[in-house]
């Protein structure tokens, strides 16, 4: 699971409606996997990210290179786009768990695949 996917996942336990994003990463194993750098894609995807959640998650994983806010010149700022590329598309969480900050529900990550399934009584 790349961090772009983590940025899309939200707790969906019944009645857990506030403060349920982003899921907190715990006990994770992270791998860096090189990927093609495509500025056009990054320029288009920035607007679809929850930026503070993304930055906080990267910091949890020890990556402190991302700015707290998206720079005004983001689309032409190659240095920024490269930092974004590494955090968003090259950082893979292989094992671990995602914990809801509100209800503490645990969603496991195994072999790079996050499991968002809930038991019948939790839906």
């Amino acid at each position, binding site marked *: 699971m790349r961090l772009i996917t983590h940025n*899309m996942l939200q707790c969906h336990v019944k009645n857990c409606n506030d403060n349920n994003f982003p899921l907190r990463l715990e006990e994770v194993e992270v791998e860096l996997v090189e990927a093609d750098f495509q500025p056009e894609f990054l320029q288009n995807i920035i607007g679809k990210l929850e930026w503070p959640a993304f930055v906080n998650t990267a910091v949890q994983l020890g990556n402190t290179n991302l700015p707290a806010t998206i720079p005004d010149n983001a689309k032409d700022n190659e240095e920024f786009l490269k930092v974004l590329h590494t955090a968003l598309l090259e950082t893979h969480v292989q094992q671990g768990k995602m914990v809801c900050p509100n209800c503490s529900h645990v969603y496991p990550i195994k*072999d790079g695949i996050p499991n968002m399934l809930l038991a019948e009584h939790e839906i």
Partner: protein
Amino acid sequence: MIPTPDLSHLNSKDFRNIYEPAEDTFLLLDALEQDQDELRALHPSICLELGSGSGCVTTFLGSLLKPSLAYMVTTDINPHAAVATVATGKKNGISIDTVETSLVQGLLPRMRHSIDVLCFNPPYAVTPSSEIAGNGIEVSWAGGIDGREVIDATLPFVKELLSEKGIFYLLLVSDNKPDEVVSLLQVEGFNAHICLQRLAGREKQLIVKVTRRT
């Protein structure tokens, strides 16, 4: 021509647990290939497939869009399928993230109005309703009454997921009463039409193409 994804890393043992690509899969690939110019011109940022099984469809779509890059993400309730989808992407040079979940659970509200290409080859076979529960290979085909139960449960999400420019490709068979599905989508305000159809044995398979009305 866009190559059919290399699935040589999967064997007959894998296909005891996951749906093996068949005529329906290839019809969906053909629908995407038929629209390749339109799909490239769309410059999709996010492509989502529900129930990705072996990963054949999303891998094909990723290859079709090359050299442009999109965020390819899929879901499957079957853990074997989730693993296979990621592996098929990797084998063919396409990065795919797969979430083990039912349809889109956990992906909304974040993916609201974000999906530029949505694909779904649903469980469409007519079966007793009791067979649609579970997470094994049977849920890749068991569709309940008229084979429509999972399809009908998915349709309300289309409005939530599709971006302004988004396109949804849905595979159906004649048992699913496709004209009724098209009407349901049109009533919801979408453009919907059958863009491709083919006979597979006695079964007519078809692809419904859905866009927002502008």
